[in-house]
Structures are given as C-alpha cells and as structure tokens.
C-alpha cells in the first residue's frame, strides 16, 4: 500500500488558526471535520536506531483508552498496524517478543533482534480535520492540522503540520489542492517526517549512534597522543551511554556494548599506553580491570540464556522440558548478578573512575608532533602481529586450551588496533587486510566458547545438585549439551591449523604490512 499523503508545515506557528483557511479558500469548498482530537504519540526505536537505519518508523498513537502501534516504511506507507488491548498499552522499554503477536511483531523481530524498543520521542498532538467537498458535498480529500508539543527528550512546540490525504478515486482534486498549498504563502512542503521534526525541535537527530569508539575520525599526521585522546574519549562516551540501560536491564546489548568499550579501553592503555602521559596507564589500568571483571559474570549468564533456545533445539535424546530447572537456575543467577553489577555501576568507585578518567583525558597534551598517529599505528599493529605469529607457531596438537585462549586475546588486540586506527586507511584495503584474521578469530572464538561453556556447565551441574535437588533427567540433558560443546570444540580445533596457515601466509601478511606502511609513509 503506497502512501498518497502529502505533508506540509505552516511557517507561521503563531497563527495557525487563520493561516490554513486563508491559504486554501480558493482550492475547494471546505467543511469542518468534527471536534479536535488529542493524540498521545510515542515513537519507538532501539537504542542504536536499528529501525531507523532499516527505513522503518514505529509509532504508538491514540487516546488514553484506545491506542495502536503503526509501523511505516521509508515512503510513509503503512506496513502493519496493531490495535493495543484497551487500558493495557505496553510498558516501554519493551522487547519485541513481548508485543502482541501479529504482523507488527513479525516485521520487527528480525530488525530489532535482542534489542528493546525504547521511546525516542513523546508528544501530544491536537488534531483538527478539514474536509474538501465536491458539488455533491461529498468528501474528496482530508486535511489534518496537527499542532504537536513534544515532551521528551526535551520540551518543544512544533509549527503546525498539515497532512493532505486523498479519498480513493479523487486524486485529481487532491493534486489541485496540493499544488495550491505548495504555492500558498506561509505553507511549505514538510522537509522530513513528523519524527524528524520532533527530534530536531528537541535538539536531536534520528540515527545518531551512541558514539562507537571505532567510528572516530583520525588523521595520519596528527600527534599520536591527540589521536589516542580522541579514541579513548569516544570509548568513554560509549561506556557511559550504556550504563543507564545496563542498570535498568533494558536489554542485553547495553552490557555487551559497555563491555566492548571497557575491553577496547584496556587494549589501548595496554598497547599504546606509552604514548600517553607518564603514570596515566599505570593509574587507570587496574581500575578498568576491576570494571571488566565486575561485568563478566552477568554477561556470561546472558550468553548462556541467549543461546538456550539453540542448545535445547539441538537435543537428541533429552526433551527441552528436562532443562527447565537449569533455565530457572540460570535466570535466577542472572538476576543476582545483575543486581551486583548495578550496585557496582552505582558505586562511588565507578563514579571516581569515569570522572577521573575523563579529567585525565582532557588533560592530555601531545608533547610534540611525533610520533604521529600513522607511525604509532604501524609500530603497534606490527608488534601485535608479530606476537600473534609467534604464539600461533608455537601451538601444537598437544598445546593446552589456555594457549589457544592467549592466542585469541592477541588476535583481538591486533584486530582492535586495525579498527581503532581504521579511519586513516582505505576501507577496502583494511577489509582485505583483516580477512584471514577474522576467519582465524571465528575459529578461536568457537573453540574458546565451547571450552568455557563446557567448563561452566559442569560447574552449574555441581551447584544444582548441591543446592536444588535437581532431577536426574535435567543432569542427563545437561550432559548432552556438554557432549555437543565438546564436539564443537574438537571441530574448531581441527580447523585451526588451516586458518592459522592462511593468516600467516605471505599474501595475508603482505596485505597487513602494506596497509600500515602506506599510511605511515
């Protein structure tokens, strides 16, 4: 269903009552469409704007006792709508899986994934309707005059917005009215959607990412310390942006992104700390380690629970119902760990860490023009690459899992260095340079995840047995999962030699070396 609506805005917000009839009087006979209606409106998106980036807009609109969710596409056409149960609108934020079953949920699920839908704008519209009539006093077009006041994320009053909608079979007269409106003084074609207008009036913009540390722009010739300050400040912004969502447990991605920001901060401090003022790395490294450790148990349980459906689907002998006590145990443990994590993120220690780190970064002054960002990048990427090659070459069939874990950490550091300095390289060459590294990381990731989960499930089984009197069928089902993990780990281990050989190959190493050499020259 394509949208034939046309949207306009009144330039003169001060006298919307007069401007509309004045401008339209000559284009058609107009009648009042009834008393003004008040619409409460909430626009929703994920924290990282997944809907907006997919060209979708989701709005909950209606009165106090009757509301619907409307999903529209890029051209304003309605893709799906869902009437919400009277008196029981969803409490936002809400996961898509908690919405009423229907086409809206079906279309949103693959886009939002595990992310919750959060209000991005709240507003109240007072809508009056005018009807354009033909000689039979038949309605041939409708004009809605919407006076919207935004209450979130900031209070703002918007210029009146006019929406002209043709009645089916009468597009000709609507075209004439639309043309008259376009040339009428005081009326302009709306430059964007109502959501865009509401965000702009609140000083925001749709699609603004929450400050990814990897997307900062560096220049090859800038002093290295200035580049590191830019990267670390962006990472701190991202870390802090994800704290409220983690504390409120809105969705699992807040903690995931918070951990990525922490891990990357730690990597920069570890690998490039010497380019920062003396003492800074030493002072903050232990604190970021504390923060990383604080977040680990909760994230491990998230990973388990997110994979739970897949694990139960893979059962051969046991039934998924056998694992219910295990699921309950994980969910209960997660609640406790999130409580502990939230306390940590509300603590004075965490506040001291972030405030102190920000102040320290603001105080970073490059001692001189050298080393440049490109020189530092070439040196650090080169060293990290050599460490990965050394560690990988030492791995044999008899090596313990810990050796592969250490190699994986080295690969992560190398990959992050390439991404952190990514803006100084050609994007296509950068992608080519890390192609084999990515494949090696995937293989090591599969190996290590199976190792950790296999070890954890044995621990969980022991705890369940000791504290909860778990049924034997649950333990048997958990045993089946452990077998599956062991098989997956063995498969990843078998793949490793080939993946590492590809990474260490002359062609792959030449691409990586070429990337850093060109920028540093």
């Amino acid at each position, binding site marked *: 269903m394509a949208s034939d609506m046309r949207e306009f805005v009144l330039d003169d917000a001060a006298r919307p009552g007069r401007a509309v009839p004045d401008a339209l009087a000559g284009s058609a006979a107009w009648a009042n469409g009834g008393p003004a209606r008040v619409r409460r409106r909430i626009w929703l998106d994920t924290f990282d704007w997944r809907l907006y980036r997919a060209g979708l807009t989701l709005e909950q609109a209606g009165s106090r006792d009757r509301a619907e969710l409307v999903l529209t596409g890029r051209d304003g056409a309605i893709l799906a709508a869902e*009437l919400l149960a009277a008196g029981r609108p969803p409490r936002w934020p809400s996961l898509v899986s908690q919405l009423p079953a229907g086409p809206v949920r079906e279309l949103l699920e693959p886009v939002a994934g595990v992310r919750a839908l959060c209000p991005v704008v709240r507003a109240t519209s007072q809508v009056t309707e005018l*009807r354009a009539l033909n000689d*039979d*006093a*038949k*309605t041939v077009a409708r004009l809605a005059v919407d006076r919207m006041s935004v209450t979130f994320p900031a209070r703002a009053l918007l210029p009146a917005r006019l929406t002209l909608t043709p*009645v*089916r*079979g*009468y597009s000709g007269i609507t075209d004439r009215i639309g043309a008259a409106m376009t040339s009428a003084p005081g009326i302009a074609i709306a430059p964007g959607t109502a959501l865009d207008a509401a965000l702009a009036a609140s000083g925001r913009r749709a699609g603004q990412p929450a400050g990814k540390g990897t997307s900062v722009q560096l220049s090859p010739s800038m002093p290295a310390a200035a580049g590191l300050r830019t990267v670390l400040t962006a990472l701190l912004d991202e870390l802090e942006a994800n704290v409220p969502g983690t504390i409120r447990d809105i969705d699992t991605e807040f903690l995931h992104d918070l951990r990525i920001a922490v891990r990357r901060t730690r990597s920069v401090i570890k690998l490039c700390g010497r380019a920062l003022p003396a003492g800074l790395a030493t002072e903050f490294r232990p604190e970021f380690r504390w923060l990383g450790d604080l977040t680990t148990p909760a994230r491990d349980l998230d990973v388990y629970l997110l994979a739970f459906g897949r694990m139960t689907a893979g059962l051969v002998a046991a039934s998924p119902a056998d694992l219910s006590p295990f699921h309950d145990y994980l969910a209960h443990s997660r609640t406790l760990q999130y409580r502990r994590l939230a306390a940590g993120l509300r603590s004075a220690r965490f506040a001291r860490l972030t405030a102190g780190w920000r102040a320290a970064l603001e105080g970073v002054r490059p001692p001189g023009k050298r080393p440049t960002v490109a020189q530092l990048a070439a040196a650090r990427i080169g060293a990290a690459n050599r460490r990965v090659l050394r560690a990988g070459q030492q791995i044999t069939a008899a090596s313990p899992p810990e050796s592969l874990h250490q190699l994986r950490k080295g690969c992560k550091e190398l990959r992050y260095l390439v991404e952190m300095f990514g803006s100084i390289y050609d994007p296509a060459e950068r992608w080519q340079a890390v192609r084999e590294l990515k494949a090696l990381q995937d293989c090591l990731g599969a190996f290590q995840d199976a190792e950790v989960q296999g070890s954890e499930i044995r621990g969980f089984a022991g705890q369940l047995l000791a504290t909860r009197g778990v049924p034997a069928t649950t333990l048997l089902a958990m045993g089946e999962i452990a077998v599956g993990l062991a098989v997956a780990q063995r498969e990843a281990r078998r793949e490793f030699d080939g993946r590492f050989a590809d990474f260490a190959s002359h062609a792959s190493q030449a691409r990586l070396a070429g990337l850093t050499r060109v920028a540093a020259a």
Partner: protein
Amino acid sequence: MKVFATYNIKGGVGKTAAAVNLGYLAARDGYRVLLWDLDPQGAASYLLRIKPRVKGGGRALIHGTKPIHAAIKGTDFDGLDLLPADFTYRNLDLLLDSAKQPARRLAALLAPLAGEYDAVFLDCPPSISLLSESVLHAAALLLVPLIPTTLSVRTLEQLTEFVGTFNGHRPDVLAFFSMIDRRKRLHTQIAAELPGQRPEFAATVIPALSVIEQMSVQRAPVSAFAPRSLAARQYGQLWGEARQRAGLTG
C-alpha cells in the same frame, strides 16, 4: 474476505438501505469494506454521494479490460469504499452471457480484492437473472429482506430451493423482515411467529420508519446521522446477527 449480498426478486423491500447501513456498520467495526452497487438505478451510490458512473461501464468490468480496483471510490466514512453503479449495468445479463462461466464471473472478479477487503456487500437489482445467479454463487451470506406477507415468504422458499440445487458452494441465507408496518395486523403476526419457526430468519426486524426514508435526504447511513434512533439500533442488531452467521472474526 466474506461476501454478503442483499437480494430479493422484488423491489422496494429495503435491500439498498440494508446494504448501506450494514456496510457502514461493518466498516465502523474496523473491517475494510467494499460495497458494490450493482443496481443501474444507483440508489446506494446516490446515498453515499458518489456519481453512478464507471469508466468503460459494465462491459469493461465484466470483460476485465478495466481492473476492478481502478473503479473503486472512497466514501465519506473510514473503511467503507464503493464500486459505483453505472447505467450500463442494465445490460449485465447480456455481458455475463458472453463471458466464460457466467455464473462464477462475479466471484472471479472479486477474488483479487481478497487482500484489500475483509467484507464485500453486493447490492443487487430486483430480478431473477444470470446476474442474480452469479451473485448467489459469489456470496457467503445472502441477506434477504422480506415484507411480512404470505407471498414474500413463498418467494423465500423458492430462493432457498434454488440455492439448494447448487453444486459445491451454496450461500447461507439470512432472511429478515423489513418495512414492518405496526398498524398492519398481518405484518406483526407473521414477523412475530416466523423467526422462531424457521432457522434462516434473523431475530431482528427492521420496522418501516421515517428516519430510514430520511437517508435519501441526508445521503448517509442511518447510524451516521441518527445513531441513537430505533432504526440505527435495529440495523446494529441485524449486523451482529449477519456477522455471526457469516463467521466474520477479528
């Protein structure tokens, strides 16, 4: 998509008033409704303020040279669209006769609209013809308004017998007494007795009321301009029975 048809061999029994009012009530319930004014007199089109004209006329629609959705007009009421009447509909019998499988032609024409509408109301001209046969084949529920007289009841029996001869799809029949004049003893007697005795009769009756005649002045359904009137209440009850009988859900 459920197809309803207001049908009676006789004219002036309240077919168009029923089609317009029930179509409006269905749309008010949130269903996407199309009303097809098949009567060349164009009474339903007039009541909904739409000119009784279709580009290319009945020939273009029946022969498929003009897509049916291109002829549809929006009414003044949300969710209710109209496929207007056209004077050439007086020849629909001849046009159907020249089409393939004439008795199934209306059903075939409506099939592509299934994704766009939840309910279609066919307002039929008074006749027994190839067109009415095609309507009977397309409809899930026949809404048959009857003046409460012995002859009218006999007409209903003939109709149900005829429908009973169909192979495959047979429409359900919901008859209802219409234009009941409370001053006439025979009217009240038949209207009181028959609905309890015959399963095809609706419990609801539509009295002869001046507010229903006012539709042609107001050019709108009764429930739109006189929502608290007795007529609006009766049509509301009749729609409830029709909806339930047709199994329209959601």
